């Protein structure tokens, strides 16, 4: 048996209680992504083995879902709410202003230095705060999310500039 990397051993321990054909795939993927921030090729191999699936089948299934990532997230991710209440208050302008400030063509990209990324978020029913974004970081205890409501395009520009220049989440919110 080939020597295992340390991270592979960690993944194996993480998913040890999941079984094949038991409806455990989503839970296994979530647990590993929660721990590592994304699903590496290595981790997919381990999960596939644990669930008795071909790695290609597992990847095919996992990649169907928007929330599973296969590359490390940026230091800070801006999750832009795409809901209707936000759209009524210029959330398209907020999205475009942030993308332009960060030099990105579209959502689901990162700045070259991996400091800031931007993803599409779905409405979770906090529409009294519309338009909103969430600022996310992957901390030691999994993802941490800070909702920022009552956004405006000008605030979006200031926030994106601050993040681009290395500000942390609190500084960016106050920018």
């Amino acid at each position, binding site marked *: 048996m080939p020597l295992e990397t340390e991270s592979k051993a960690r993944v194996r321990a993480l998913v040890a209680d999941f079984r094949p054909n038991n*409806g455990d*795939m*989503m839970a296994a993927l*979530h647990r590993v992504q929660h721990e590592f921030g994304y699903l590496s090729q290595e981790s997919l191999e381990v999960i596939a083995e644990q669930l008795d699936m071909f790695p290609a089948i597992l990847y095919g299934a996992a990649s169907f879902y*928007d929330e599973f990532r296969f590359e490390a997230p940026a230091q800070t991710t801006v999750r832009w709410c795409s809901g209707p209440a936000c759209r*009524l208050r210029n959330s398209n302008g907020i999205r475009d202003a942030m993308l332009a400030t960060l030099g990105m063509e579209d959502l689901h990209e990162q700045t070259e230095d991996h400091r800031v990324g931007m993803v599409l978020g779905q409405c979770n029913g906090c529409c009294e705060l519309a338009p909103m974004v969430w600022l996310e970081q992957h901390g030691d205890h999994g993802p941490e999310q800070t909702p920022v409501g009552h956004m405006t395009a000008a605030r*979006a520009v200031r926030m994106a500039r601050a993040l681009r220049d290395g500000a942390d989440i609190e500084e960016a919110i106050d920018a």
Partner: protein
Amino acid sequence: MPEGVAMPDLSVALERYEELRVRADAEYAAWRNPERPRIDIAMDTSSLANGARATGVAIHRVITERNAAVDMGQVHGYGMQWIHPSVQITFPNGETVLYGPVKPEDAARIVDEATGTWGAAADLRHGMVTGTHEGVPSIRDHEFFSLEPHERRLMRNLGLTDPDNLMHYIARDGYRATARMLGRHLSEEQVRNTLNDAGLTGRGGANFPTGLKWNFLYGAPGEEHYMVCNADEGDPGAWVNRVVMEGDPHLLIEGMLIGSYATKAKVGFIYLRDEYPFSVQRMEDAIREAEAAGILGNDVLGTGLEFHLRVVRGAGAYVCGEETGLLSSIQDSRGMPRVKPPFPAQRGVFNKPSNVNNVESFANVPLIVRHNSEWYREHGSDKQSGTKIFSFSGDIPRVGFMEIPFATRLEDCLRVCGGIQGGQLKAIQSGGPLGSLLPAEALPKLILQPDSFTPWDAIMGGGGMVFCNDQTSVLVLTEMFAQFVEDESCGRCITCHHGNQRQTEIIRRILDGEGRREDEPNLVMLDRTLQFSNCVHGQFSPKITRNMRVHFKGDFEAALLGVDPTLTMKGMYEVVVANQRPEEQAKAAADICPTAAIQGEPGRRRVVDEACIRCGACFEVAPDVMAKRPKAPKPGLVPIG
């Protein structure tokens, strides 16, 4: 039941329940009439987004600093999301008062109010949740709740229990329906018939009779049946299921438990969307607590019946809200819907007979079984009985949720939400991305009952209603939904996969001011083509675009010509420097522009149109300087046909 196996003695369920109830009553009485005043922070997704944690920390700090004789706890928000973060104070006499919004800087005042300085937070008070107090109205008399029945049903525990506390649920008659059903040997058929008599139908939007659906599963062959809850509430603008799961998680568990008995299912799954992490946590905690109390597991209330419940967390795929997509997702694969039949009652989870119901459908079940079907029909209409939770958002001052009887007038809902804000009512969006875009003139005729929406080629859907004013073009909303259904297409049917790409392309091009005369017939053709898709996602995906074409014909035809009175469609206006002064504003506009499109020396600033992305940042910092100017309309398009 095979011969030789003794019928389990189910009457033990009542004894077990009584034991639990004694404990629960004592615990709940102590919570309702605490020895010291208690400040309960509303904890739910909306409260958390509004800063409930910070408020809680600040209040806790004040209590600690003063060594105040006050305790802290939690509840779920009462429905008025615009006053979040909210808190409730419960006094030893059992009076409970609702306050909001309580920011961290208000913490000292709230503690003052709780410790005897009545009036310290008078301006934050909204009403009495329980009890009466001179000068403070009952929260039930608040205009926002004026359409709700006097006694809430599905939301009866909101504000009155700690959602994480099983004992509170039991003390408020929770699991009583289960105990009586088992203990009094109600047959599976009787349970299903009660639901049919009550007229309970699927609350996810499809409106299929719940009891009838359960008949199919009960009658399905084999012993291995599965009960599945669809908690993948993906419609943007709808958060009805979230309220049930975070406000009263045991209500859903009990509904599924009764469902499992009525259909001989031993295992249940709650497929919960990833965007509700707080709901996931509440549901998982509640399941654990119910297991520990012997309500779930191998020996339900001592009867020897089995029911195991698990939460499966989705991962951002809207189409998993379609039942066969959801089932695929539970079974370790891509969440792609498949052709029906076979229906889930024939082939569901692990290819075994299964049943998929919405959260709210399940939540109604314990209430119906505990009372009876006549009680249930007291609210609603002949065509649709009962109550339903609706969530309201958009251009209204009062964003929130309420539980209202079916057949309530939608116009009244808008009124209690404070009316339309920032302009005139333009459109009502119901039923999510596969739902509808209704014109303002439909409002007086609409009642909250599915068949009332049908004449408008619309659906009522799962309970999300978005009121839109006339400041944003309906085509901007159409683009949002077109893109949504395109993104969320599973890709199996070429009609849906490619058809929605073309639909989005056309709408986007119109938004860019490049409308063509063939756009309308092409959209019609796409609409027809999409009807050949296999699942409802494809079939319903052109619906909002169709609603836009039909109900907002004037706006659509004007947009094809490049005319947009709202000036929200990118290609139909340009941003200009209307005044060179005040210079501070002009400079601020140039500085904020993310693409440096505002160029030139002071006094000679101008916008480079090719660089401008129309994000709107400059208008905020320089309202007196920057302006939108409509572009010249294109020469008239001659419609085809």
